[in-house]
């Protein structure tokens, strides 16, 4: 019994089938609960009620980065061990990551308007997220453009690898280019100034909720891709017969 057994599509389908209802249930519970709890928090003395936006903004931003990392790991597994489910999972994750990036950007812009007095500022964090979004778009476009599924998996895998290096490089290049307005991480363990627990616990719940939501969507999307691949394989076999 090893983790690689789940690389077998049939085994993956069977396992996720039983897992999905629980996952969807807990994802809905946690994300709706966390965001709604966040919505009910009292006003911050500086930010007023706009502090409520943080319960969408921070989890979405966190997932935007983590989904790219997950895609990188999945691509590496595909390139090294050639497990199809891994490549399909990376493909399935990309649109979710793009939407998360978009949510982080949109909620940030809406929050920035009254707080910083501008929708958009060429601040390092904002710029990095825009760049990350560009990488997601390029990755999705490449998957859509290549017809042969194995070639597509290989090419997007290489792109993901190179893209990861350059996304990281851009992050620091941008930091050099312009020092920003954006506040530092408010949840980091080291920083002395901590977020009040009134906001912290709903935020944790919302983050967990977004993570579970991603997991549920990822599994469903991967199942979709496996079914599509199976259908294409069956049709190809009949064409030959």
């Amino acid at each position, binding site marked *: 019994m090893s983790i690689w057994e789940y690389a077998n599509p049939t085994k993956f389908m069977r396992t996720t089938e039983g897992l999905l209802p629980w996952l969807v249930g807990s994802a809905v519970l946690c994300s709706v609960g966390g965001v709604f709890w966040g919505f009910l928090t009292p006003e911050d003395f500086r930010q007023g009620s706009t502090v409520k936006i943080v319960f969408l903004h921070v989890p979405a931003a966190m997932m935007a980065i983590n989904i790219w990392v997950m895609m990188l790991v999945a691509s590496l597994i595909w390139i090294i061990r050639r497990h199809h489910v891994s490549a399909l999972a990376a493909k399935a994750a990309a649109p979710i990551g793009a939407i998360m990036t978009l949510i982080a950007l949109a909620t940030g812009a809406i929050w920035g308007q009254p707080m910083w007095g501008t929708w958009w500022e060429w601040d390092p964090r904002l710029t990095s997220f825009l760049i990350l979004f560009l990488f997601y778009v390029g990755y999705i476009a490449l998957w859509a453009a290549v017809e042969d599924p194995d070639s597509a998996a290989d090419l997007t895998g*290489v792109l993901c690898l190179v893209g990861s290096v350059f996304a990281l490089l851009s992050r620091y290049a941008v930091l050099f280019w312009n020092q920003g307005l954006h506040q530092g991480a408010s949840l980091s363990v080291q920083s002395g100034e901590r977020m009040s627990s009134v906001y912290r616990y709903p935020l944790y719940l919302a983050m967990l909720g977004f993570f579970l939501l991603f997991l549920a969507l990822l599994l469903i999307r991967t199942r979709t891709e496996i079914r599509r691949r199976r259908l294409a394989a069956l049709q190809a076999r009949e064409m030959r017969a």
Partner: protein
Amino acid sequence: MIALLIRDLRLATRAGGGFGLGVAFFLILSALVPFGVGPDRATLAPVAPGILWVGALLACLLSLDRIFALDHEDGSLDLLATAPLPLEAAVAIKALAHWITTGLPLVVSAPLFGILLQLPVQAMPWLVASLALGTPALSMLGAFGAAITVGLRRGGLLLSLLVLPLYIPTLIFGAEITRRGAEGMATATPLMFLAGITLGVLALIPFAAAAALRVNLR
């Protein structure tokens, strides 16, 4: 290797090879920008470094799909892949040929366009230096993008979508060097960063590009 380089250069300079197209594009861009933002020296001079660098980027992008597309069509790419020369080296040579036909003319002609855009004279050496240092990375990254999209029917637009985000670090440091040069500030730090990026790209990207080519030739 040298034979491959000479062949690529000869193909590029022949009629229909597109040699000098990048410079012509650069010229048109430099002529268009003042119409867009106004002829005022006070508005042109501060944006000149950025415009020149973005222009160089786009001019480079124009000819990228030629790196592998023509060889893919007539089958010589398959020969290259089976040749005793490692594909990585072939990719590097092809990127070098692209740089000589596109990047080098840009580097040489950039001061001319700097004058058109009212770039201060003291920034000229920095402009040339930053372009000379940065454009090899642009050609190499472009070769990677071209290797990924070589078999695709509508590869051109996708190529720019994939390659442009990869150009961001080079653009940031290149334009920063020129801007600092124009304002008479120290340029050593961005110069070092740019050199680091270019060297890293030259060392590692040929492997990624060759891997992508092998997939496309499978």
